[in-house]
């Protein structure tokens, strides 16, 4: 082969390689795009809920609360009958069965919604106000276009009459969609239209916090000791091998550990972020130690020598010079480890964070679920309304992971700029 032919062949090979690379990237992006598009298209509707605009007449006598009821009076009263009466006004019928069907158009939450409104707006007593009351999940799905209207009535969850009412209300613009704050503020619920991630969000938050508080200091100090101070002998070699292996252990094994020791032996409260946090911190420890050690190793020995030469003790040289330089890599590793902990499902299921918890937890000792567990639970439910909620929760999870990664990148850049 002549020289020119060889050169041409080389150029062609390089072009081919570049082409393969670009194709690979495009393929990967395509998959990511498909994934994201799928989730977003299914989940974006969860951020809105359908409401029915209902006229409510806060007649003093009908309320039966007296002249100047206080907030507590209102919240503690029974306004069920009052609510039903007002609701039925949207489409007057005689039939008891039909009345039931009308009531079924609404989310069973209506009494609470009316109560809350009244309690916060005591001055409306004596007035008639149009409230936006949450519809039932069937109506919600119907309004969002997910409902198969063509099916025969006995295969539908919504009767012909309900459809009729719905269409009439819709034509009179009494059906609308508003931003679904319930998704964020409510805990889990049997009713899909009322279910929210509030509980699991707090549960995840407490879990990750505890995981961070336990694993970060231990991991950092262990890394520093192993890398800088420990003598290099067989024992430390064995420790290093073991730590590397621990990082590869399937997370469900940690779940078993949590179950066996924390729940059974030490009898910690089940389903709590406390237990979840401790379990996950065991898993996250090696995942922080490994990048931290790598960062410490990467600090050039000239920095250490420079510090020692100026009269710093070993301790000072390490903590004043080496550790700050290792921080960017360590922080990146930590945040990625925490992001992984955030997404863990299997170990949390084992320690019981599958509870159906309605109340939003206020401390790490309250039982709760976590975001990925919530996804798992909802994905098992039959109602159509949970489909969009599941996807929306996945969107939230992905959003958090992206934010955490951005924080990692930002912190890394900030530290690197400062120290370099």
């Amino acid at each position, binding site marked *: 082969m002549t020289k020119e032919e060889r050169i041409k062949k080389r150029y062609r090979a390089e072009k081919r390689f570049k082409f393969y690379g670009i194709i690979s990237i495009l393929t990967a992006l395509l998959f990511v795009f498909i994934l994201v598009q799928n989730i977003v298209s299914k989940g974006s509707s969860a951020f809105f809920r359908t409401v029915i605009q209902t006229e409510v007449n806060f007649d003093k006598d009908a309320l039966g609360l007296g002249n100047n009821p206080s907030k507590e009076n209102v919240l503690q009263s029974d306004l069920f009958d009052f609510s039903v009466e007002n609701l039925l006004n949207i489409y007057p019928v005689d039939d008891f069965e039909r009345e039931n069907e009308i009531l079924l158009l609404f989310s069973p939450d209506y009494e609470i919604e009316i109560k809350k409104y009244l309690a916060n707006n005591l001055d409306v007593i004596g007035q008639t106000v149009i409230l936006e009351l949450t519809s039932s999940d069937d109506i919600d799905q119907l309004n969002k276009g997910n409902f198969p209207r063509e099916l025969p009535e006995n295969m539908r969850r919504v009767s012909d009459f309900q459809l009729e009412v719905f269409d009439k209300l819709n034509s009179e613009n009494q059906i609308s969609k508003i931003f679904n704050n319930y998704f964020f503020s409510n805990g889990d619920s049997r009713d899909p239209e009322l279910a929210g991630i509030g509980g699991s969000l707090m549960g995840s938050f407490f879990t990750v916090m505890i995981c961070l508080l336990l694993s970060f200091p231990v991991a950092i100090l262990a890394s520093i000791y192993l890398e800088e101070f420990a*003598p*290099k002998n067989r024992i430390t070699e064995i420790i290093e091998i073991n730590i590397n292996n621990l990082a590869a252990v399937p997370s469900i094994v940690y779940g078993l550990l949590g179950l066996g020791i924390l729940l059974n032996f030490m009898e910690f409260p089940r389903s709590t972020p406390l237990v979840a946090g401790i379990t996950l911190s065991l898993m996250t420890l090696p995942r922080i130690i490994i990048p931290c050690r790598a960062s410490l190793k990467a600090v*050039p020995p*000239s*920095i*250490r*020598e*420079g*510090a*020692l*030469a*100026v*009269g*710093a*003790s070993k301790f*000072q040289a390490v903590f*004043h*010079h080496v550790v700050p*330089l290792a921080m960017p890599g360590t922080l990146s590793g930590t945040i990625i480890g925490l992001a992984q902990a955030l997404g863990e499902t299997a170990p949390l299921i084992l320690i019981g964070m599958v509870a159906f918890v309605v109340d939003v937890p206020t401390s790490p000792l309250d039982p709760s679920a976590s975001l990925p567990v919530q996804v798992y639970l909802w994905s098992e439910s039959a109602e159509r309304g949970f489909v969009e909620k599941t996807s929306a929760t996945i969107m939230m999870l992905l959003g958090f992971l992206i934010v955490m990664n951005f924080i990692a990148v930002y912190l890394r850049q900030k530290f690197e700029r400062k*120290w*370099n």
Partner: protein
Amino acid sequence: MKNSKVKISSNNLNVYYGNKQALFDVNLTLNEKEVTALIGPSGCGKSTFIRCINRMNDVIEICRVEGSIKMDGMNINDKGVDVVQLREKVGMVFQKPNPFPKSIYDNIAYGPTIHGVVQNKNQMDELVENCLKKAALWNEVKDRLQEPGTSLSGGQQQRLCIARAISVNPEVILMDEPCSALDPIATAKIEELIDELRKTYTIVIVTHSMAQAVRVSQRTGFFHLGKLIEIDTTEKIFKNPGNNMTQDYITGRFG
């Protein structure tokens, strides 16, 4: 010879790295406020020797030191000697400039801070200014003390390292090929600086450049394969060395 007071002396110094012996029975003296150059081919032990003087070899686990090194009459390897205090008295400048990744000001302030040398910020400002002036760097950096030390050029970085070394007020400065990574002008500035510094400090410089050793030092020692072959005034060594090996090395007949 005016300043003949002995500052540092080594007596039958033997250094081992594990089973390998790096220095054999080295006996030499370094005089106060004088520049002593150490020359010799690569791997001959000169860097090992100077690292014994500030006990940087302690960092290497397999390194073993036998024999004595005395500074002002006291053996620095004695059990009771505090290495940190020793390194306050014996500073070091390395081959590749290694300023801390901190601001110029903090680079110099670090040593005095951890040794508790100054009381307040004003004193520290003064100390930083003095050190930078002594290192002939003040005029170039006085308007940007908060910028990172690593933003300076190679020659400036090395002068910063020298300023850092003198910030803790040492008595001896060890220099391990300080100019080998620098261009000729930066090298000339550092040699000029060494000429100034030797009025105050005892200096030992390891160098691969014969011409530099001649320009900068008053005494020169020649090492070969871990042994000190000859040590004498620089003039004698470079005009008429007593030992043939020395002559062969400095004229480029082997090396």
